[in-house]
């Protein structure tokens, strides 16, 4: 059974801090790993990673995948209150079109 585990489950920081969110996965015939951000509505797509060691970056957010160690990290630098959200990690494996999600990390950024 495919499994994705995120840590920490929740995190409280102050504006300006840098945070690292972790995602480990056990997915049969792994194809790709996705990160989403969820505020009080629909999850919105952040990154898709398929190759090991390649960093995907968008503004203050970046993510990297380690296929050997089966994990990914999401970094957020210079956090802002607008970064407060649930961050979801999910993996695609063999099962046709089926994404397996982790539990999510609840990030709270205080002013």
């Amino acid at each position: 059974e495919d499994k994705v585990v995120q840590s920490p489950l929740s995190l409280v920081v102050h504006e300006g801090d840098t945070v690292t969110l972790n995602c480990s996965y056990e997915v049969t015939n792994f194809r790709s790993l996705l990160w989403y951000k969820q505020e009080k509505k629909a999850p919105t797509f952040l990154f898709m990673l398929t190759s090991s060691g390649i960093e995907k970056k968008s503004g203050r957010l970046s993510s990297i995948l380690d296929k050997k160690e089966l994990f990914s990290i999401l970094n957020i630098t210079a956090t802002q209150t607008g970064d407060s959200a649930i961050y979801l990690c999910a993996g695609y494996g063999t099962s046709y079109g089926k994404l397996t999600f982790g539990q999510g990390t609840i990030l709270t950024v205080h002013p």
Partner: protein
Amino acid sequence: DVKVTQSSRYLVKRTGEKVFLECVQDMDHENMFWYRQDPGLGLRLIYFSYDVKMKEKGDIPEGYSVSREKKERFSLILESASTNQTSMYLCASSPGSYNEQFFGPGTRLTVL
């Protein structure tokens, strides 16, 4: 922009009622999905569909059924709602098997 809409943001039903949750996407996507989201458990896949009239069970299909009569519309049906089906229900669509999934705003269902 891809748009996925769900029929209700909030819904309150009684135990034993039949409940229909509707999802519509406007980007001609092949695949559509229904998830439920519960605190500490993340998103869990209930059913998905990769073509009209086709459906596949996800990880937690018990107590649910689905219908896809048209490509843009995917319905989730709770035949006889129970209190343990109180949850946030999220619909998603994607253009192919291993693409980004686009999510709707969710329906928060409470079963009393």
